[in-house]
Each structure stands twice: as C-alpha cells, then as structure tokens.
C-alpha cells in the first residue's frame, strides 16, 4: 500500500448555507495521476478550494501527507482556473511564474536572480521560455495555461491540485501538459486534476474521483470508470439531494 498523499474525510461545504458538496470522502495514494470528473456544478472547484482552506467547511477533515493543509502547504502546488484572474494585469509571464516562489523569497524581500532563474527554468519546462517577457494578455489561451502550470512547477511541490488545466487549450498544449503530468508522476509527484473531457480520462489518469455533490465512485480508473458509474454521476438527477438543497435555500430566503 502506497502512503496517502491526500485524505479527505466527511467533507461538507456550503455557500450561504446551501450545501455544495456533501460528505465527500476519498484517499489519494502518493504518485498517482488523479482525474476529478463530474458535471457542471458538481462542486469540483469547491472541493479543491475546500482542501486548501480557501473556503470554510461546514464539516470534515482534510489531511495532506498526514498533516493539516496549513502545515503541508509548502508541498502543495495549485493551478487555479484560467478564467479566475484578470489577464490584463500589468505583469509578464516571468512575473506570474515568480509568484510561485514568493513564500520562498520571504515577506517584504525583493526577488533575486536565483528566483528569476528558477522561474525561467519552469517556463522552459512548459515550453514557452521565449515568452518570458511577454505581457500576459498577449499570450494565447494555451500559453496562459502553461504559465499557470509553470507557476506551480517552480514550487517543486509533491502534490499538485489543478483546476481544469486542459480546458480550452490547443492540441499542442494539451499534449505538452499531459506529457508533463506523466513526467511528474515518474518523479514521484501526485497530481489531482479536474477534467472535463470524459473521452480522454482513461488515457490520462490512473485514478479517478467521480463527483456529483457527493463522491459517486473513487479508485483505479479501470475499476471505477465504468458506464454504470458515469450514468450515476451524469445521468440521473440526484433528486432527493436536489430537493433538500432547494428546500434549504427557500427557507433561507424566507428569513
């Protein structure tokens, strides 16, 4: 049995007291490439954010390498959704990648040459070293995604949490990112990746979490990525759960 990289236990998250994920529970062994799959509004991004304490949990416990997140955060790299930031921000690609090193640079201290060199190296790893000084709005969607990836890589973390890194990127970028993921796995890293394209799941990931507000199934891809489970995740509406949510929301509004 591999040691556990990420352990989520009984996690429930609510926005404005409206539950978004219920009783989510799974363990991710170290060194796996994990796909998180589920329909829109299934709470995939919420799950990642709750793991990193970015939003308050209603209940539950998260352990990263056997410790609470804030004790292991130096071992975790995060790639947020590309749409979550303003790409018109006055910085270049190298600046963005350097942000991954700010903790290492230290509070109030300026960025030094060795940090910039590390950032350049990370950009080279994602194949856009020549775009280091391009303003980020001048990058294509795929290049922006690579920049975000480089920012996580430069941390040299052990667990990577990625929110749709393969959404709306060109084929070349997708291939490059997948190649990178495999390489990271070969280096013993763990990656948990929200993914939207069901077709490619078995090719890219050896482990999946099927999520629709709750965990429908989790385990090795060949065991759990079945039609039946997909049906349960995407097909039948979770009527009871939906109704409960709606009822709570109505009551909330009535107050």
């Amino acid at each position, binding site marked *: 049995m591999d040691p556990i990289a990420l352990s989520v236990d009984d996690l429930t998250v609510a926005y404005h007291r409206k539950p978004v994920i219920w009783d989510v529970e799974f363990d991710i062994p170290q060194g796996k490439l994990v796909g998180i799959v589920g329909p829109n509004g299934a709470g995939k991004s919420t799950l990642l954010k709750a793991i990193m*304490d970015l939003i308050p949990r209603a209940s539950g416990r998260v352990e990263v390498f056997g410790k609470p997140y804030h004790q292991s*955060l130096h071992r975790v790299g*995060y790639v947020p959704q590309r749409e979550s930031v*303003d790409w018109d921000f*006055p910085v*270049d690609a190298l600046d963005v990648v350097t*942000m991954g090193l*700010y903790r290492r640079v230290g*509070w109030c201290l300026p960025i030094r040459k060795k940090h910039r060199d590390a950032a350049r190296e990370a950009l080279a790893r994602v194949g856009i070293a020549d775009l280091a000084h391009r303003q980020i709005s001048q990058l294509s969607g795929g290049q922006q995604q690579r920049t975000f990836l480089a*920012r996580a890589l430069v941390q040299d973390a052990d667990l990577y949490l990625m929110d749709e890194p393969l959404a709306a990127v060109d084929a070349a970028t997708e291939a490059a990112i997948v190649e990178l993921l495999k390489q990271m796995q070969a280096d013993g890293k763990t990656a948990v990746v929200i993914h939207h394209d069901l077709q490619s799941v078995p090719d890219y990931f050896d482990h999946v979490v099927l999520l629709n507000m709750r965990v429908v199934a989790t385990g090795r891809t060949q065991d759990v990525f079945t039609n039946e489970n997909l049906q349960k995740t995407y097909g039948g509406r979770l009527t009871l759960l939906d109704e409960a949510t709606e009822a709570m929301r109505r009551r909330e509004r009535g107050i």
Partner: protein
Amino acid sequence: MSEHLWRVLSLQDHNTRVVIFGTAILGFAAGLVGCLTLLRRRALVGDALAHAALPGIAGAFLVATALGYDGKSLPLLLAGATVSGLFGIVSILLIRRMTRIKEDAALGIVLSVFFGLGVAMLGIVTQMNRGNAAGLESFIYGKTATMTESDARLIATASALCVLVCIALLKELKLLCFDEAFAGARGYPVVLLDIVLMSVVVVVTIVGLQAVGLVLVIALLVIPAASARFWTDRLVVMMVIASLLGMTGSFVGAAVSAMLPRLPSGAMIVLAAGLGFLVSFLIGTQRGVLVRFWRRRQLNESIDHQHLLRELYEIFEHDPDRVSVPYEELLERRSWSRKRLRRMLEQASRNGWITENVSKMEFALTDRGETEAKRLTRRHRLWELYLIRYADIAPQRVDRDADAIEHVLEPEIVAELETLLDKELGKTRMPDDPHAGGVGS
C-alpha cells in the same frame, strides 16, 4: 498682487512651500496606492469612505468645542472623519451581506446618506456659530490655503508611511490583486493583506480630505493610476508613473490654488490630474489611442505592401520572360481601388522595390524588390502549406486564412514552419503556389 504671485512662484513663503510639498507627497502616495486599488477593483471604496467622513468631521468639531478644546485641530477632525468613514464602509458590507442589494447600490445608498447627514450637521454647526466654524466646509472642496504648516507635516508623514508600506509589501499585495485564490493557497493571510491595503487607502483618503476635498479625493486615487496604465505593461513602472503624475497634479493644483486663493485646491488638483489623463489617453506609448491608431495603420499598410509585392512576384514567376506589368492588370488582381493602388505603388517605388516607366503605367521589380517579394511570397506559401497539411482546412479557403494570419507571423514561427515542412520545400526552398493546380510540381 504681483508681489504675492512672485512669492508663491518662487516658494519664498515658508508656509506655502510646506503646504505645497505636503500636498505633492500626498499625490505621490495616492498615485501609488491607487494602482493597487484599481487593480484590486476597489477603486470606489475610497469614494464611499470620503463621503462618509463628513458627519465625522462635523461631529468631531461639535464634540471638541463642547468640551472646550480647539474644534479645528486637524488630528481631531481627521480622527472623527476616520471613525465615520469606517462606519460607512461597515454599513456597505452589512447591507451587502444581510440583504440582496448589490455592492454598487449599497455604495450609492451609504455614500449619499452619509454625505447628506454631514451637510446637515455642518449646517447646524454654522447655525450655532460657536467657536468660528468657518473653514470646515473647506473639507468638501479642499482648500490648501487654510492649511497650517503642522497640518502639511501631518499629511506628508502619513502619506510617506503609506508609500513605505506599499513598497515593503509590494510583491504580497501584487499577488493579492492578481490572484487571491493562489495567494490563499500559498498560505498568505489574504484577509489581513486586504485589510492592510484598505488601511492604506483609508489613510490616504483621510489625510487627502483637507487638500483635495471629500468630493474629489477619489480622483487622486483613480486618475493617476488609470493614466499610468496607458504608458506601460509593467506594474512597477505603472506605479512610478502614477506616483509622479499624482505628485505633479497635486503640486500644480496646490500651487495654483495658493496663487489664487479663491480657486479651491481640490478642483485645481483634479483638473491638473485630468489633463495628465487626457495626455496619457491620447499619446500613451502602450495603450494610447493615437498609438493604437498608428499601429493599425502601419499593419494595414504593410499588408498592402505584402500583397502588392506578392502579386508582382507571382506574375513574373508565372511568365519569367515578361519585363513589366501594366497598371490596369495589377488593378484587376485584387479588390484595390485606383487611389489605393496608386498610393501603394508610389510607396513601393520610394522604398526602391519597383521601377516604373515614364508614364508610370508599367511596373517591374528591382533586385531589392524581388528579394523582398520572394521572402514574402515564401512566407505566405509556407503558411498556406501548413494550413493544408496540418490544419485540415479545405485548400480553397486557404488564401483568406493565410492572409489573415501570415501578416503577423514572427520569424520564430516561420523558422518552425520551415522545419515542419522541410520535405515539401525541396531544393529551391520555395513551395509552389497551392492555387496553381500543380503547375511546376
């Protein structure tokens, strides 16, 4: 009068000098802080804060005079302003959290109600006419003329402190403004950083009240930062430019107001900053409208040149024995108007790419022109070939797509295409015209 003017201009008057420099440092700080709030999309918080400060100013005056203190002592008034300003911001947050009213509406409600309350309280103060309340209304429109030396020193010190905080926490605040979620994931105390940023805004706004006035102080936070964005794509440069613009605007505004005491300094400062914005908007080197217009024109012109040279090259390629091409034939090759083709030909001739006969109706490529035409045609065909081979685009549609994209092809991409299409190129290193239907291959 002229003597007064000279004293101000030469900054001989000690008090004027201190006041103007104090205001200039305030402008510097506001420009710097403004960059961060603008990028954090919190620009209007300063406005709400400033308007909500008025009841506090009137209230502080009333309480202080009632207790027998000097009601017009600046630190006291500003303390009152801070309390009621923060109270205004808390009201906005409460309205937003407890009701379904959106932030902009909440802002409008709080801003106007607090300002109304402040004006009413100021009216009462003047009515009671105790302890000489004249001068309090200078907080509405700003008046550097009523500033004392110690006031100016207070303003300058507080502003300088804000600058120091922003510089010390530059990278943390930058990360907060760019990607809050990532900052949180890296373990930064996001809420604390936000509070620091807001505190800096509060300090700049509050100490700016007297110089710029609460109606206009928001301008000092927004205008220099927005102007600076026209000049650069780098945050640090933007901050330097915004600070200098804010400083210049405040300096000029305060100086003018000192010369002509009837002109409120706030209005003068805002007008000076507005002038800076207008100039940046027009001629800013990164995003100014003139630069963008000029760049588009340059692109269109270079597209025209490339089309012309390619047409000429293809005519001569098709029939190597030809000596020249008549104007009318060129005109038919593309949807050029007569005037436009004429202009293009003249430009090409000036560039030394083509030669023309005496009547200027027959044209041929010079050696230089041929080299350039060959390079352009080659680039165009490489791109077309790439689209046919690798992009699954029907060959009939290729030309339009190639036209749209190849004009912005960079040398690296051309080099990449060459390696990709190495086999197709053969010895001549020139691909055939995909439209020619196999001629020559």
